[in-house]
């Protein structure tokens, strides 16, 4: 088992500052999304990545712009981390016509192909084989693109996980599987329904893969394992699976207060919050408090602006309803 040492990450401070900014963006975006949910502006459901920002950040930074992300319904952070602007993402949550998919997908299906964000998938496990397919296509066409596929700890017990891992291994596909282990499924503790301690890492050997665990609340550590795995994949050396240990600060979805979790556990993990940790590290490295504060303020301004723009979006109409079932843009099943 490989456990990557901390205090590594990208060498230059500029990149580290970008990583800080990204984490703050993801954090503030999710907080805003939650506020708007409570205001009943987010209509369906939503699953926030509060507390898990370091994983999306570390990976996004290690990816090439033409690499591909496959995420779950808990996909806001992964979408933003690939460079998708905040406004269309927030507007999508509000069901507005300026939403990323004009309101047709909703919070659980954020997709922006132009940013390599190949979709958020709401059926547990499904996107692991789909990511294999993208990786296969890269391999076939020789483009050296890599597919990165994120999923949760609870998702390791579904059949599609198993099929995808074996498939990727035998075809040596350029895909990196990332288990964001936040200890919980919806309201059930994953360890109570899983036969091994590390739901992903302890199963890597079943697919001939190395067991890799990383501190998922340390963006630099994540960056390092991500860069290594992506490089391996790009070099044709096949898939990797990484288990990133983390925690979600809030509930599973919507307004769930997450009360089923012991207070002590929540407190322990709040103390490991990736953002203050990263902030301290930057201060230690000589970045000024003022510089960090200005990043934070800029992000707040951006989130405020996105909020306004999203709210100003129109209500999607009948024209959108019957559009884009088929590649011809329409929905007719008859002549």
């Amino acid at each position, binding site marked *: 088992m490989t456990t990557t040492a901390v205090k590594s990450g990208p060498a230059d401070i500029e990149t580290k500052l970008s990583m800080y900014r990204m984490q703050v963006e993801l954090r503030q975006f999710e907080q805003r999304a939650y506020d708007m949910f409570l205001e009943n502006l987010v*209509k*369906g*459901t939503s699953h926030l990545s509060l507390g898990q920002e370091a994983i999306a950040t570390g990976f996004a930074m290690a990816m090439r712009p033409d690499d591909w992300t496959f995420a779950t319904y808990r996909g806001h952070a992964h979408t933003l981390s690939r460079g998708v602007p905040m406004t269309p993402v927030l507007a999508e949550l509000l*069901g*507005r016509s300026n*939403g990323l998919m*004009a*309101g*047709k*997908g*909703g*919070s*659980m*299906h954020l997709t922006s192909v132009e940013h390599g964000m190949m979709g958020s*998938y*709401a*059926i*547990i*496990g*499904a996107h692991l084989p789909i990511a294999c397919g993208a990786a296969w296509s890269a391999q076939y066409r020789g483009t050296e693109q890599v597919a990165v596929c994120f999923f949760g700890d*609870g*998702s390791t*017990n*579904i*059949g*599609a996980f198993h099929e995808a891992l074996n498939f990727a291994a035998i075809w040596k596909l350029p895909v990196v599987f990332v288990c964001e282990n936040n200890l919980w*499924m*919806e*309201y*059930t503790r*994953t360890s*109570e*329904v*899983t036969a091994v301690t590390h739901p992903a890492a302890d199963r890597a050997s079943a697919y001939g893969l190395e067991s890799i665990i990383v501190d998922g609340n340390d963006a630099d550590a994540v960056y390092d394992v991500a860069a290594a795995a992506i490089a391996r994949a790009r070099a044709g050396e096949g898939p990797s699976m990484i288990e990133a240990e983390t925690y979600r600060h809030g509930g599973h979805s919507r307004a769930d207060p997450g009360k*089923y979790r012991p207070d002590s556990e929540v407190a322990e993990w709040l103390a490991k919050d990736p953002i203050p940790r990263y902030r301290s590290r930057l201060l230690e490295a000589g970045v000024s408090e003022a510089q960090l504060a200005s990043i934070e303020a800029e992000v707040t301004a951006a989130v405020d602006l996105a909020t306004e723009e999203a709210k100003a979006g129109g*209500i*999607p*109409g*009948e024209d*959108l*309803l*019957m559009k884009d*079932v088929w590649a011809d843009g329409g*929905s007719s*099943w008859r002549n």
Partner: protein
Amino acid sequence: MAQLTFREAIARGIAQEMRRDESVVFLGEDIGAAGGVFKGTVGLLEEFGPVRVRDTPISEQAILGAAMGAAMTGLRPIAEIMFADFFAVCWDIVVNEIAKSRYMTNGQVSFPLVIRSGNAGGLRFGAQHSQSVENWAMMVPGLKVVVPSNALDVVGLMAASIRDNDPVIFLENKILYSVKTDVPEGDIVDTLGTAKVLRQGSDATIVTIGTMVGRSLSAAEELAAAGIDCTVVDVRSLVPLDTQTILREVAATGRLFTVEENPRLCGWGGELSSIVSEEIFFDLDGPITRITTPHIPLPAADSLEDMAIPSVERIVSTITKSMNA
């Protein structure tokens, strides 16, 4: 008489049967400690304990496989598939194994089990969490299919489903969970395969199910005001199907309108239409008209979803137009 929500009725029906029969066990994701993601199973773990009410991993094939194996060896399991859309990940166990094994073994095994699931749209959950799957199940020989429209029916049909010796797909339209109905005290056991005539009219017959029952009744009121007097039939169980009631009520008015939340193609409305036009064609006075969701995946945005799913307004306008044609 106490008012019960649809979600409370689920727990009430299950508890009633678990009290009566030790062989009834219940498994699914987050059904125990959490009381279900829709809070439909609150209190069951507390009353019946973790041996009879079991939280599972996210392994729908294992959940239904376990239910099947238990059913064929003496238990009467109830399994939850959280959202009906997830039937797609365990469809093999449902259609190839549970549905067929009794027939294939020449009756050596039976499958007294219930698979309950949150069905249909209206909650803005998007295309992968909003499907109506009653036609998925109806098309498979060997499955019974129940879709209650109110809390009272939930209790009695749940009990009947649990007592039934065949596999029952019990679909709970999620948008109904919070709706209250009067439910009397005491044990309630209903009968599968019995439709209910909720309103008697003379001009046209609306046949419907689930969420669309309430909307059809509202539409019937509006139509009555405009001089079109409709019968409304709540089918309640698609298999077994109460064709006697349906055929009688359609024959009486000479016109059939089906109202369903399914996408257009191969929904149960088509099946009813074909039964009627095969068996009582000469009792019909005009076209059979189906009111359905269009043949599209369900969109997430509230405005779009509302346009897609049949509304009272659309039911009224479609029937008005057709009756005046």
